[in-house]
């Protein structure tokens, strides 16, 4: 159906190439409010409440909240709390967030997808009444702010135009941009800052702690302890003309006032020392470094220096102490290292950090220090009113900013992980610190799953090779719930030209691709996790349990979808032919290693399973023998037919698992430590070599 109601405008963009894109404006977009009787909503399309309950003392009437982009970008931790509801997310905001920070964008989508949060996405950019064209000379961000204000005004007018008897919801615009706030007030839009709004929220203790601390501009030099960072433009030109070098900052684990940056063109990493030399770089950040003259090159200090236990306030006094310990320069010293100082930050690589709170000694204080579990990360100053409860817990903290006048970076409390020493809390710390995604699967991911009582549809069976009649079995460790492969073997009639017996051997792997379709939320989540993680007492699945330990687990006596590779093999384990196809199988038995061995050894058992296992066992021994003869890692051994097939069919994305030899630099610290122990020089451990991917 072609709607003639749409009309057309063009957005012109591009610097060198002029790109003209069509942009259709519509009149069939919904406002999502139950208080509206003019948009043609269907019942399930109402997201916003008829009478939203206000939780903010500043606005004691029903209202919907519209958020500015800066609020989403900086206060996502506040938004993730179940406090704010009835929120309108404009498309303008959604796109700006997506453009600026994908991880925050994903988190925002997660909130929007959660029905109980009542977040409505309004497509203002395509609505005929809320679209704004960029004026000549207007900055994109100013245009977007204008679009946000227009959408807010439109909502207010739209809701009031429904002549309903009861009080209709008002609109409150939350923005931290002072300029935007002022212009909004001129337009008659009710607005306030995040801080004002959140501090006046009733009934959600701890919400205030999650507020991200406001950023003081770098240009402000009041009470400054640190030199100002250069602007991105200055860094760019500096790096280009060779004055500065870009590199990744690695903090020292032993000395909090020392770190290095590996810079291209220098064999040794650049040594950065002292508060000023490091200038607020945090481990992992991409920084711009200025190299000091050669006369100031030093060797790394070998002292251990930890940050003070107590908050000394905003001053930096260890500088002299450190410099005292630095050894005098000796040009013959082989360990002399180029030194430098950080002049600017190219990109922060901050994440959330686990650690413990060190409550301030002053009773009733709200400013406290946080010590991260990772020693390379500096202490963080956070504000919380729940320090007594949090003092005994492992907590998660996000970094917000590091202004020039603060000794420590500023952050905010994200959530508590549990009591210090508690097993589950410590597990959580390990997972978070190693960046293992372990959240519960999102609603979007779970929506990709088949129902719990799913069975194989008949039409799917028709499309596949039906191997249900074959005697297939699996052998795994005891207690294994994700049986991902199964085997079968049977003698074939006839012999080879040389008179050798022939066998059919099949490997069947669970066909996960039937359930995990490309580019679905499930596919992306699985790609992000990329493996199942096993802790001592817990397993973090790569795909939801229904798949990993049920539908994609080749359990005994259950029909399952599989991908099969079937070989014809002679008794000397030479491959005669091979074929690959999707199949339906029904495993006859899911055995443990022990059960399988007993079955093979029990001479009286002559059933199909026992025979199948004996053939496999015999062939496996021959294959192993052959591999040994070939030199264990020769890639021409027959069992790589799967890898060959993959490389042939998917030349762009076939993978071989490879374990390259570790670079010698990885051993330097170890060798140095060993030397001090007066041990004989150890030889690096033998390095594993390439092995074909997968064992199926």
């Amino acid at each position, binding site marked *: *159906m*072609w709607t003639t109601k*749409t009309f057309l405008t063009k957005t012109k963009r591009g610097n060198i190439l002029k790109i003209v894109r*069509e*942009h*259709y404006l519509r009149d069939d977009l919904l406002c999502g409010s139950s208080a509206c009787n003019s948009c043609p909503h269907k019942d399930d399309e109402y997201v916003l409440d008829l009478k939203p309950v206000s939780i903010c003392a500043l606005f004691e009437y029903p209202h919907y909240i519209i958020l500015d982009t800066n609020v989403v970008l900086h206060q996502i931790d506040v938004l993730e709390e179940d406090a704010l509801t009835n929120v309108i997310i404009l498309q303008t905001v959604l796109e700006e967030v997506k453009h600026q920070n994908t991880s925050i964008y994903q988190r925002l989508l997660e909130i929007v997808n959660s029905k109980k949060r009542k977040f409505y*996405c309004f*497509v203002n950019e395509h609505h005929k009444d809320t679209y704004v064209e960029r004026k000549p000379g207007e900055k994109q961000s100013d245009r977007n702010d204008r679009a946000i204000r227009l959408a807010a005004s439109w909502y207010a007018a739209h809701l009031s135009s429904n002549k309903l008897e009861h009080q209709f919801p008002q609109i409150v615009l939350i923005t931290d941009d002072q300029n935007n706030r002022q212009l909004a007030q001129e337009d008659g839009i009710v607005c306030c800052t995040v801080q004002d709004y959140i501090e006046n929220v009733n009934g959600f203790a701890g919400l205030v702690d999650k507020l991200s601390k406001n950023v003081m501009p770098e240009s402000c030099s009041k009470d400054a302890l640190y030199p100002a960072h250069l602007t991105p433009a200055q860094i760019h030109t500096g790096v280009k003309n060779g004055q500065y070098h870009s590199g990744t900052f690695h903090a020292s684990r032993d000395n909090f006032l020392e770190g290095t940056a590996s810079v291209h063109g220098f064999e040794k990493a650049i040594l950065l020392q002292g508060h000023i030399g490091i200038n607020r770089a945090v481990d992992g950040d991409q920084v711009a470094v200025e190299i000091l003259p050669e006369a100031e090159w030093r060797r790394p200090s070998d002292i251990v220096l930890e940050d003070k236990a107590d908050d000394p306030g905003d001053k930096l006094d260890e500088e002299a102490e450190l410099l005292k310990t630095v050894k005098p320069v000796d040009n013959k010293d082989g360990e002399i290292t180029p030194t430098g100082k950080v002049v600017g930050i190219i990109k922060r690589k901050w994440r959330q950090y686990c650690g413990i709170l060190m409550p301030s000694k002053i009773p009733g204080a709200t400013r406290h220090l946080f010590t991260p579990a990772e020693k390379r990360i500096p202490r963080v100053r956070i504000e919380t009113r729940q320090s007594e409860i949090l003092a005994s817990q492992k907590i998660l903290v996000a970094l917000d900013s590091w202004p020039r006048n603060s000794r420590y970076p500023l952050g905010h409390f994200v959530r508590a992980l549990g009591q210090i020493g508690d097993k589950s809390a410590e597990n959580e710390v390990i997972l978070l610190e190693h960046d293992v995604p372990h959240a519960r699967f999102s609603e979007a991911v779970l929506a990709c799953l088949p129902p719990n009582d799913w069975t194989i549809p008949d039409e799917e069976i028709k499309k596949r090779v039906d191997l249900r009649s074959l005697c297939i079995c699996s052998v795994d460790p005891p207690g294994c719930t994700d049986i991902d492969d199964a085997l079968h073997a049977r003698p074939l009639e006839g012999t080879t030209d040389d008179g050798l017996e022939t066998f059919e051997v099949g490997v069947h792997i669970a066909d996960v691709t039937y359930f995990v379709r490309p580019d*679905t939320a499930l596919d992306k989540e699985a790609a992000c996790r990329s493996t199942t993680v096993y802790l001592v007492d817990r397993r973090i699945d790569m795909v939801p349990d229904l798949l990993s330990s049920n539908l994609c687990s080749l359990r005994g006596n259950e029909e399952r979808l599989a991908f099969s590779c079937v070989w014809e093999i002679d008794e000397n384990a030479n491959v005669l032919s091979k074929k690959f196809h999707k199949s339906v199988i029904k495993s006859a038995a899911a055995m443990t290693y022990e059960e399988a061995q007993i079955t093979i050894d029990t001479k009286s058992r002559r059933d199909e399973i026992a025979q199948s296992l004996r053939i496999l066992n015999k062939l496996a021994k021959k294959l192993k023998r052959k591999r040994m003869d070939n030199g264990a890692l020769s890639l021409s051994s027959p069992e790589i037919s799967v890898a060959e097939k993959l490389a042939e069919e998917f030349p762009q994305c076939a993978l071989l698992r490879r374990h390259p030899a570790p670079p010698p630099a990885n051993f330097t610290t170890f060798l140095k430590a060993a030397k001090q122990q007066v041990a004989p020089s150890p030889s690096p451990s033998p390095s594993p070599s390439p092995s074909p991917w997968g064992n199926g």
Partner: protein
Amino acid sequence: MPAADLLSSQGLRLDGRRANELRRIRCKLGVFTQPDGSAYLEQGNTKVLAAVYGPHQASKSKSSSDGVVVNCQYSMATFSTGERKNRPRGDRKSQEISLHLRQALTAAIKTELYPRSQIDIYVEVLQADGGTFCAGVNAATLALIDAGIPLRAYVCACSASMAWGARPQPLVDVPHVEEAAGGVVLTVASLPNTGSTALLEMSHKLHMDYFKMVFSSAVQGCRDIEVILDRAVRDHLAEGWTEQDTVTV
């Protein structure tokens, strides 16, 4: 497989259309007086001109006693794309599209009526924003009608692609942004009135399971285009009569 974000969670495409909506189509018949028939057609930002000469006596070498010989030439103006084109015609891509045009249009023309004759059809793309072949077919149909050449039915062309969200959905009438996203583009030229398909072309591999979906979406697009073309023809004829009347008076 790319092209995941072609459809937003609100069900809108990058340009604000829904999955089953065509771009805005505007067209006009009889834009030139020199050729026997001509038409101008806009499909979104894709803009094409078509001119038809004939039927006239065929050159000796091409002449066929079975029916009319259809000659097609497709070309793109140097200014039609973002970066200027160096060769407006005769490159491989243009030659290929010329052949496709010929195949699609020959299916609609009642070729048996004009033995030993030929019809020349020229299609010039003035601005390219995806689906230039489709716009070319649609414009040529109008130009043929303007030239008064008997057709079996309107021949319309439309493309379709796929959005791979949580639920795969076909997208009709693919503009350049969606083409460039790297997903599959299926081009269909069909005679909606007779239900027959004159040409099918696909840019990438697509799993059989989804083919029907994409195909029927493109065919529905052809049907919708036919309605628009038909209206344009009727408007043009109504307009034409009054103009002629004033001339004779």
